């Protein structure tokens, strides 16, 4: 598309004093013949904006390039309906980090004018992706979390389908005798609120309940998920097995294959788990929904390494889940002989040798022990409860409940590690060491209660059953939970439109489950609303661009389908990718993965970035002015550059920065473009990766590093040194490291001959 571009150079902020503005204008009007180029100070001022608007109307501009301060400021000022706006950064990236009125500073600014005019000229005109979408929500799990999500979404006016595997709603909450509610005065237990909630769900005309049902399959994408709901039955076990086997095989292949991205499926390996039944052969319902809340909850973890505590051999050694069921019946009686219990030892910590005694439990296990101690004290005023813990964990106002229990003379609370439980004359003898009451202690009790962990159901059961090329599950976070790995964005899973809530995320109490469910319901609503407008969700919320594939040139290499962190691509029978635009988060990692360069966005393409590289002016080898292209992540590295500028940190003027949507957006062809133009070195600056990755698109920076590891072939072909490519990880607050990184690389390059391709 041919654009009429107006270039507006800002002379404020010291730019006018540090650069030859006339020469900059000559680049725009001379080299590129733009119809309008003006230089004024502070284009964000209303009277200056009026000039731009006037030019848009009078000259018929289709695009405006502001060359001035960082695009991170005045974003709201530079909005002109229907006109493309681009921003070249002459402030933070030029005059604030370079000496004024220097030949190299001027060359840097002129290159940015060239590169950004070219960038602007490459915008395509494409409408956003709009299809008819559903604004109904699927909630999986009819426990407290799922019911809360359903009710809260319904209260905002949305239709909900609620699928619960048991014949009745309520989940675990049905089995609780009493609950701690987290409400003042914090010292009392209350009846489980579950019946109230079930009644509200049943009363709601916005919620359709599928009790005794499971999700057989979810296919499609946000705004257009098709869900097959099927009555519970033995089929689910077959599905569990098929998925677990498939996952184990996939993991084994990955372990053998090595690093990320190297997950090429061997010939004939199944890309999806086998599905036992064909939906045409069983009764089912299909519902179309826009988004999904996954609230499948937890199951108790069988106590591990608890043989020395008599678990499994002594009938009166039970778990806290079993005690809950006993207490719900009224008086607490002993499993062995039915005698009413008058003393209980609660054991929170199985032993020091178990690294994670309660991997899945430590959020609430202390509270459960205290609660159950109160059951005994209320049902039997002479009863005695011993609670042995490693760390008493009663966060927030729950501390007040703990304090109240400390004041109860029938409750003995102590740090302590149990060393053994044995049969004694009138019950059980519990040996505990390292207590507050002495080094060794023996108590005789009627019952021993062990804390159990809360394992997320999704750990090994088929729940979502996604029909996605990348598999039927939500990718887990590094801790094994179905949660986002972002502290700042806890709902952002790697499957767009699917939000988790409650104990699939981590063990939590009722209050937290309800809060979490409400938040997940909001995200589900938000996703449907944005998708209906053809807009992206987090972290590029509102972005109307989406990837388009020129499929006829596709070689079925499958890199895009495999590398997309969000599983946006499925596969056509012929092996070409099948995009699902509403699953897409617009990171453009697929664009970087594609060796055929056939994936593009309307405002971002392989050609656009490649053309920016080629637009640079590269001095000849005798000028002793090397050139380096630095591809940077726009999310974190770009602000780093801005902050370096704000602090007036100075670094080499030989570098040219090109921001990408994510470092994983890097396409190898740009490296070849740069090298064959005579660029001396290429640097990539992205986010930290690894277990505690900071990449907003999960694995973009890691993929970039991986791709650069494969560049050696290109370098060998060009007979160039491999050190000309440099990849750096930089956190957003490490601006002070930037000059060192840049200058060290320039220094390193000075040890090489100039790139021999200059001038070709």
């Amino acid at each position, binding site marked *: 598309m041919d654009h009429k571009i107006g270039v507006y150079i800002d002379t*404020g*902020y010291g730019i006018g004093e540090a650069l030859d503005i006339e020469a900059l204008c000559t680049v725009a009007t001379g080299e590129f013949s733009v119809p309008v180029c003006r230089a004024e100070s*502070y284009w964000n001022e209303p009277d200056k904006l009026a000039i731009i608007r006037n030019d848009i109307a009078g000259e018929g501009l289709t695009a405006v390039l502001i060359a001035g*301060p960082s695009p*991170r*400021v*005045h*974003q*709201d000022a530079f909005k002109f309906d229907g006109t493309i706006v681009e921003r070249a950064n002459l402030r933070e990236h030029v005059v604030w980090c370079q000496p004024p009125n220097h030949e190299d500073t001027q060359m840097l600014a002129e290159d940015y004018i060239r590169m950004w005019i070219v960038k602007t000229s490459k915008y395509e005109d494409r409408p956003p992706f709009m299809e008819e979408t559903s604004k109904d929500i699927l909630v999986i799990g009819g426990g407290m979390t799922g019911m809360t999500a359903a009710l*809260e979404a319904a*209260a*905002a006016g949305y239709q909900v389908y609620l699928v619960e595997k048991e014949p009745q709603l309520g989940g675990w909450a049905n089995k609780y005798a009493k609950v701690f509610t*987290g*409400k*003042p*005065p*914090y010292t009392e237990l209350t009846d489980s609120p579950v019946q109230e909630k079930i009644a509200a769900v049943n009363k709601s005309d916005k919620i359709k309940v599928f009790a005794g049902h499971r999700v057989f399959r979810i296919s499609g994408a946000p705004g257009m998920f098709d869900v097959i709901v099927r009555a519970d039955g033995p089929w689910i076990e077959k599905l569990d097995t098929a998925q677990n086997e498939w996952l184990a095989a996939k993991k084994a292949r990955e372990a053998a294959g090595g690093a990320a991205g190297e997950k090429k499926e061997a010939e004939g390996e199944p890309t999806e788990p086998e599905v036992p039944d064909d939906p045409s052969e069983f009764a089912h319902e299909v519902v179309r929904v826009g988004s999904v809340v996954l609230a499948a909850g937890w199951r108790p973890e069988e106590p591990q390494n608890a043989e020395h505590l008599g678990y499994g051999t002594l009938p009166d050694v039970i778990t806290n889940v079993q005690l809950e069921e006993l207490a719900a019946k009224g008086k607490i009686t002993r499993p062995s002989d039915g005698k009413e219990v008058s003393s209980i030892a609660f054991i929170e910590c199985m032993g020091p040798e178990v*690294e994670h005694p309660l991997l899945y439990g*430590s*959020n609430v296990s202390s509270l459960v022990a205290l609660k159950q101690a109160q059951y005994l004290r209320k049902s039997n005023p002479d009863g005695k409860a011993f609670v042995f*813990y490693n*760390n008493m*964990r*009663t*966060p*927030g*106002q729950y501390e*007040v409940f703990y*304090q109240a229990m400390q004041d109860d003379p029938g409750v003995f609370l102590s740090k302590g590690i149990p060393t053994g439980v044995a049969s004694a004359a009138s019950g059980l003898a519990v040996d505990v060491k*390292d207590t507050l009451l002495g080094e060794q202690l023996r108590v005789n009790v009627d019952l021993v209660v062990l804390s159990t962990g809360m394992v997320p159901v999704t750990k090994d059961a088929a729940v979502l059953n996604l029909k996605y090329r990348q598999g039927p599950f939500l990718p887990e976070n590094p*801790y094994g939970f179905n949660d986002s*790995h972002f502290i*700042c*964005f*806890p*709902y952002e899973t790697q499957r767009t439109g699917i939000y988790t809530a409650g104990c699939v995320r*981590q063990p939590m109490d009722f209050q*937290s489950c309800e*809060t*979490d*469910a*409400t*938040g997940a*319901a*909001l995200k589900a*609503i*938000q996703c449907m*609303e*944005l998708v209906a407008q053809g807009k992206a*969700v987090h*972290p590029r*919320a*509102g972005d109307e661009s989406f990837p388009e594939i020129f499929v006829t040139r596709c070689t079925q290499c499958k890199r895009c389908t495999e590398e997309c962190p969000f599983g946006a691509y499925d596969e056509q029978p012929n092996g070409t990718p099948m995009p699902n635009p509403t699953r897409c988060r617009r990171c453009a990692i697929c664009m970087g993965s594609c060796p055929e360069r056939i994936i593009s966005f309307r405002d971002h393409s392989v050609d656009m970035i490649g053309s920016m590289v080629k637009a640079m002016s590269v001095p000849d080898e005798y000028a002793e002015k090397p050139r380096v292209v630095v591809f940077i992540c726009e999310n974190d590295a770009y*602000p780093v550059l801005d902050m370096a500028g*704000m*602090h007036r940190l100075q670094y080499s003027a030989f570098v040219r920065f090109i921001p990408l949507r994510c470092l994983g957006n890097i396409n190898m062809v740009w490296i070849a473009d740069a090298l064959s133009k005579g660029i001396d070195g290429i640097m990539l600056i992205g986010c930290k990766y690894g277990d*505690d990755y900071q990449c907003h698109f999960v694995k973009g920076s890691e993929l970039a590093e991986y791709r650069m590891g494969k560049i050696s072939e290109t370098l060998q072909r060009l007979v160039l040194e491999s050190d000309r490519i440099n990849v750096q990880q930089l*956190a*957003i*607050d490490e601006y002070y490291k930037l000059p060192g990184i840049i200058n060290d690389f320039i220094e390193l390059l000075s040890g090489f001959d100039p790139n021999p391709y200059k001038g070709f």
Partner: protein
Amino acid sequence: MAGQKTVLVVGGGISGITAAVEAAEAGCKVILVERLPYLGGRVAQLNKYFPKLCPPTCGLEINFRRIRRNPDITVYTLAEVERIAGKPGAYTASIKISPRYVEDHTATSKCVEDCPVEIPNDFNYGMDKTKAVSLPYEMAYPMNLVANGDALNKVKDTPGFKSFVESCTKKGIRIDLEAKAETIDVEVDSVVWATGWRPYDATKLEKLGFGTCANVITNVMMERLAAANGPTRGEIVRPSDGKKVNNLAFVQCAGSRDRNHLPYCSSICCLASLKQATYLRDYNPEAQAQIFYIDLRAHGRFEFFFDRVTKDDKIILTKGKIVNVTEDPVTKDVILEGEDILSGQKIRRTFDMAVLATGMQPNTSVEKIPGPGVTYDDFGFVVSATGIHGAGVTKRPMDVGTCLQDATGAALKALQDTVGR
């Protein structure tokens, strides 16, 4: 959704920002009100988040971008909500907006280095000074200078100040000490209150030496001390003499879990101290950190973080209650006294510096919500579930991730207020 409805979010910390952007991206108009001159609140002053040890500005940047590109969010800084009347679906709120006293085109502190007046730097908890005209921090949103009117008014007739004003004008920065506060009234459908917390006043902990011992600081100060943009540029050194800290003590439950101060558990201090111990170990590989705790509360999956940190044998955990902190008058070393809970033995140990893990006190315990129908618990946390919606630490002590879940939920509560009215 029929017609766009408006949500007022009060408090521009991480909870308020989240409630605002989540509600706006779900289709509401949002007015976000923050008392300070910038958004970000307490997390902007943190060096790193546990458990990933990543910089909070990384997530803030994304959130600021969400605000910048969303025309449905209006932000007022230096603003306070003075009064709210009405009911869900129909509230009126009065917002008082104080002047910045300076207008610029997004300048930086470097642009006003010649300002002749210095004031204590609140962003660094008073550990250094800043110019009376400055950008609060590099990532500030809005990215505009702010002036301290009181400090400048004292010197407004001096030649130094006049020439400073002149030099500013040349840089496109206009200083106007005559600017006045204004009050605006807004009609909104729903209100989310997320005014967050303040660190418990450590001077009230008389025996723990804060304010009397030079090298006793609080955990929030430790965040600034470790930050590259902090008062020491990230050098973890003693306030008394600038000496590198080799031997650091953390005193847990400084105020929290104490019936005389904050009876509740602040939930995050154990993890914060574990995190801060890693700051010291990264900065000074020779250094040692000792954490004195009652219970080490690493809940849920934070237990992985606890494991990782405590693998370091130079991070020592001692189950003990510190009851008295004094200093050596000559060396300014800090002397901790207390009891080892397990052995029952007395503790008396000397450290280069001590960090008090002070707890979180809800701002609503001091400044109540000026609106109808809000109820509080004994500690000042909001407990009412209808009407004005609390979000984040306004409701209970919580870590950042939990605040965000809570604030996202509050956004839905706000959305519900706008439905069918």
